[in-house]
């Protein structure tokens, strides 16, 4: 479904993505982890062309998305994207946020879109806050609206860019459980996160990135029990060290 081939990106002198190559199959959940500044957010943002790349190719559903003339709106309409900072539209209610893409992109009728929005908001557990404005919702609720908004595009693939990093610790669980449910329904997901518990439980594969490279690609049980790359070993030691276990979210935040 996704195929990255020798992708390179520089910010001036800084090599943000260094020859990144990897494949993701339909129905897979891939968790991307690594220390802060390792290029994982940049990588996931290239998948729906929120970033430009300088060399290499990225195929989504067999189409070279950086080829000249590729329809970027069509590409994005087929991919859900969940941001760290939610990025809900503050002038629109939860329902209207979810309705916008069906209305303006898919050309659905208002009644249909409204029903779909209600259904999706119920699915993420917000049936009681359907007409709330974003400013009236907690961070966890806002992020669940954002997930519903992504689902409204009926995408075969959703990208999550640190979806729980901006949340208070007590709200992380509600968002992760929605994501677990999506995974169990067979959604293809790429998730940048520091939530190693989620990775262990839900991921089919782990990509470990550092300095713009994918250093290790492994099954979760192999990665967590016996990481091969020294930097992956250190990363795991840091993030899972006993004195930090009680404060795992804080540690994640410190790394973010």
């Amino acid at each position, binding site marked *: 479904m996704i195929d990255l081939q020798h992708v390179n990106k520089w910010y001036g002198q800084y090599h943000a993505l260094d020859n990144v190559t990897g494949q993701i199959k339909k129905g897979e959940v891939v968790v991307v982890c690594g220390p802060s500044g390792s290029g994982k957010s940049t990588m996931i943002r290239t998948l729906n062309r929120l970033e430009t790349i300088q060399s290499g190719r990225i195929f989504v559903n067999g189409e070279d998305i950086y080829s000249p003339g590729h329809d970027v*709106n069509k590409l994005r309409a087929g991919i859900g994207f969940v941001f760290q900072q939610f990025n809900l*539209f503050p*002038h629109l209610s939860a329902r209207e946020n979810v309705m916008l893409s069906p209305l303006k992109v898919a050309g659905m009728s208002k009644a249909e879109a409204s029903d779909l929005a209600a259904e999706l908001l119920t699915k993420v557990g917000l049936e009681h806050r359907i007409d709330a404005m974003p400013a009236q919702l907690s961070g966890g609720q806002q992020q669940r609206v*954002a997930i519903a908004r992504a689902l409204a595009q009926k995408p075969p693939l959703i990208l999550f860019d640190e979806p729980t990093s901006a949340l208070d610790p007590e709200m992380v669980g509600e968002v992760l459980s929605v994501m677990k449910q999506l995974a169990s329904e067979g959604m293809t997901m790429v998730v940048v996160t520091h939530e190693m518990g989620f990775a262990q439980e839900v991921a089919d594969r782990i990509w470990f990135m550092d300095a713009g490279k994918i250093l290790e690609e492994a099954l979760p049980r192999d990665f967590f029990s016996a990481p091969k790359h020294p930097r992956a070993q250190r990363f795991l030691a840091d993030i899972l060290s006993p004195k930090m276990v009680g404060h795992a979210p804080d540690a994640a935040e410190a790394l973010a």
Partner: protein
Amino acid sequence: MLDILSQYGMMFLVGTWPSGPVGGFAGTLILAGLGLGLSFPLAVLMALARTGHIKALRVFSTIWVYTFRGIPLVTIIFWVYFLLPVMIGTTVPAFTTALSAIVVYESAFLTEIVRAGLDGLPKGQMEAARSIGLSYFKAMRSVILPQALVNMIPSLLNQFVSTIKATSIVYIIGVQEITFSAQQINSIEMTKALSVYLVLAGFYFVACLGLSQFSKWLESQIRNRQLHGV
């Protein structure tokens, strides 16, 4: 001052209307309202060009803004007075000349206001709108502009105040508005110039101060709403 106001009140308000064209303060408000209203669509286009990705448009709108911010309104009036009849091949009424000059002049300031409104939104708003598949223009129309416009309302009101004040110079080409009326009254009365011009100042003072205070109040309302939800 009161005698001037009671004797010439109507002339200050509407000029020589209904026997002549609408002038006086009504003329001022019409000129300022039309001026700002007509320059607004122009300013939105200029601001989009100025923040957009097409280099030629960006350069053009930047030159436009700097030029018309950099020369006095009087100079623009001279140019329109001289060029507009040549361009359209017929004589142009003074009101049209003044209005055209004001539209051009105000568009430069409005462009900067609209641009600030667009830049003031978090970058994530455009990214999120594009991520759900909206095109650039749909994202602008459904997500960015509605938010930016609400945030801009206080600045737009302040610009309306500036426009009202700016229109006072167009009497030099004989446009009927309140400063023109005051000149007429002064030439009738001859010896009460101070009263006449203080009454004139009073009209502007009340209207402009009222509008500026209203704009301040609106700004605090908008800020409150953003902090605490609707």
